[in-house]
């Protein structure tokens, strides 16, 4: 006899769903945010874009123009410590130095108005931001971008929507720094973010893992630049044996897997309570941590090398695009224990990076082995030397070369659309 025929349950019997009961438990939270406008993109923009129909900029690409290019960058309002914004502004600066112009348009769905005066002051007073000559504007959907813009740059995924909707055939670039759909559970935001890789923009990606992923999985054309380690800030200054370890801990950044790292270090401390654990990256004090540790919070870049040089090994977890940290700690003589995955291997495949499966026990055992390594000091010396001798290609040169080629129409007719 069929079970379902006896069932008088609700429509929630839609079938296989492991977590239905868990979802119910979360309801009280989710119902507080019951507006459609909570996405990073304006719903009007998400509705207006139909990427399944080839756009003007793909069917009728502009004539080559490689000098005095007028570029427009659409970006969310920057914060003082936002590494992503700092990097984007660095690339705008490369364009200006190469003789092009930049206009920045700030795009947000936040109800709080954008304070341009405060942003200008912050950019001017923060050494991590370059001094840009270009204008800063608030993106106004009624006005859009200047119509004589030659090249439009999207940055975060939500800015790809206004970039797509610009009415002219100006070239479209997408300054991608991470695989942003992974910042969401599978749902509408995931889809809206993922779809932007199908818009037919030309990608300028941070590292080759991201570029090859976007091309292989979404047919998105583009180029990438390699990261470069700042050799001035990181070097080997301690040639004695080291007995401490480091964890790059950023609880608000899910992809840095703080909770998982905490499991690894819980196991490490259980086995070896003598090993001092340092945490850098964030103030950890509000979070429960069941072992003693040194809370360095978010240190200034100038203070990091000293902390690194006390450590034999570092636990660095990157679940999407890899952090620069493994290369930086290596320059300071610290062995990075990194999760083994394409996103970490394809960025900078050094024999000194200790790739490990994401098993707390296995990672804890590796960190202990690194501290106990008889050859720890000589290993640290040769590792630091390997980073110091790497000839980093300047990201700015790579970018300007690729930008110029794209503006010359080198890829026309070869793109996804």
């Amino acid at each position, binding site marked *: 006899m069929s079970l379902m025929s006896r069932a008088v349950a609700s429509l929630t019997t839609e079938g296989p769903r492991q977590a239905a009961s868990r979802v119910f438990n979360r309801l009280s939270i989710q119902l507080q945010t019951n507006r459609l406008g909570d996405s990073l993109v304006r719903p009007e923009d998400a509705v207006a874009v139909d990427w399944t129909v080839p756009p003007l900029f793909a069917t009728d690409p502009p004539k080559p123009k490689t000098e005095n290019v007028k570029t427009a960058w659409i970006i969310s309002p920057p914060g003082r410590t936002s590494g992503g914004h700092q990097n984007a502004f660095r690339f705008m600066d490369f364009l200006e130095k190469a003789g092009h112009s930049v206009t920045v348009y700030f795009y947000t769905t936040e109800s709080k108005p954008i304070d341009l005066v405060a942003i200008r002051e912050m950019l001017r007073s923060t050494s991590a931001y370059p001094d840009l000559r270009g204008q800063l504007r608030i993106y106004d959907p009624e006005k859009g971008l200047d119509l004589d813009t030659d090249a439009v740059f999207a940055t975060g995924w939500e800015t790809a929507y206004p970039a797509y909707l610009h009415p002219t055939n100006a070239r479209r670039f997408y300054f991608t*720094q991470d695989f942003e759909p992974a910042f969401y559970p599978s749902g509408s935001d995931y889809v809206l973010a993922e779809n932007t890789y199908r818009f037919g923009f030309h990608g300028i990606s941070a590292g080759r893992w991201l570029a090859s992923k976007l091309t292989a999985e979404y047919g998105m054309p583009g180029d990438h630049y390699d990261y470069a380690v700042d050799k001035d800030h990181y070097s080997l200054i301690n040639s004695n044996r080291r007995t401490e370890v480091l964890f790059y801990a950023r609880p608000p950044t899910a992809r840095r897997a703080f909770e998982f790292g905490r499991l690894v270090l819980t196991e490490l401390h259980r086995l070896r309570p003598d090993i001092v654990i340092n945490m850098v990256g964030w103030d950890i004090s509000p979070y429960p941590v069941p072992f003693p540790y040194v809370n360095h919070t978010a240190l200034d870049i100038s203070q990091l090398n000293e902390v690194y040089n006390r450590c034999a090994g570092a636990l660095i977890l990157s679940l999407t695009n890899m952090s620069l940290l493994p290369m930086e700690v290596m320059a300071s003589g610290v062995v990075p224990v990194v999760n083994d995955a394409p996103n970490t291997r394809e960025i900078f495949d050094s024999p000194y990076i200790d790739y490990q499966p994401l098993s707390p026990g296995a990672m804890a055992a590796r960190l202990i082995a690194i501290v106990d390594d008889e050859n720890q000091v000589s290993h640290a010396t040769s590792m630091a030397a390997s980073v110091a001798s790497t000839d980093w290609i300047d990201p700015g040169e790579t970018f300007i070369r690729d930008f110029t080629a794209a503006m010359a129409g080198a890829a026309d007719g070869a793109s996804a659309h």
Partner: protein
Amino acid sequence: MLRSDGPKSVVSKAIHRWSRSIPPEAGTIKLGFLVKTTDASEVDWSVPHPAVVNPIRVDGKTVVAWIMSPPGESSGGHQNIFRFINFLEEAGHTVRVYLYSAHTPYSVALVKEMVKNSPSYPDVKASFEDYTDEGVAADVTAIFATGWETAYPSFRDRSPARRFYFVQDFEPYFYAVGSDTVLAENTYHFGFEAITAGGFLAHKLSTEYGMKASSFDFGANRELYSVTNTERRKEVFFYARPVTARRGFELGILALEHFARARPDYIINLAGWDVSAYDIPFDYVNLKDLKIDELNEVYNRCATGLVISLTNMSLLPLELLSAGVIPVVNEGPNNRLVSDNPFLAYSAASPHALANKMIEIVDRQDLPEYAVAASESVRGSDWETSGRAFVEIFESSLRG
């Protein structure tokens, strides 16, 4: 400030959101997983379990343990688990249910009572008990993990029983990439044998994680879902579940906004959840959470139904077909590999494209005949067939 984290575009957004709330007090933020923290910490899957390295072989009727989170009455996932427990019992096996939860308080007696009395659950003979450090009973020869967190106690259990994994969705997708994703994904490396709901999961788990994986097909109950209206239908349906991210509620609303503008004479029904709290920019009928015996009447008023599934496909498309409704489904292997029924109208997950597909269907000249043909196409899909497939996979694995 540590700014050497490298390129990341949304950091400021995260920081911005963070800073809007009052800074937390020291020691106030709880860390919690679905799995018990000790289990997550102690499982070292880089060293395989002995029961996986040297699997025992069992022929004939046996004792099967199922580890699961405490079932709720309206949990579709649990209802489906018990559907298959029932198939095992009908085939002569004995089942012991073990409840596992890191946080939610529950009572074994109340759970047993609910399963026994609820019309949404089949009558099973299975025993119910709490999963403790003692592990499963000595007579157990096969252990099924269900939700990802239950794979951890199964891995830690010293029992030599064969390890199976009843997989109904790709659960790492339920989280933003982070620690939960890792803990869920790691369970696919445990060396368990997967029996999955539909072919997409079996394909994904075997190709990406090297799991031994087999699948059973979805069924649709013809006693519940059939064509009762052969006239031209002037309404449409959207399976709207704002509380379940993978049902793409917001995306569906964006699509329906286009549809409502293009075909204003069609009534739009939203069912699956009470959506009255949401700001929806078109006229619609809020059917809320319908009873299972009310659905066929609603379905039979509708020409097409929009069903977005971003992980494993929902059961709804097959049920809609059975009732003569043409489902518009987002394109993707997660749906295609579960059903290749030619009446499913696949569309790119763009608001315009989804709406255009719905318009195409309601404009069909031959819609009433097409609806009947669609219903006929799923005549062979029933749960008894799925149950037989499941029992056959289980028994032959145990023997092998």
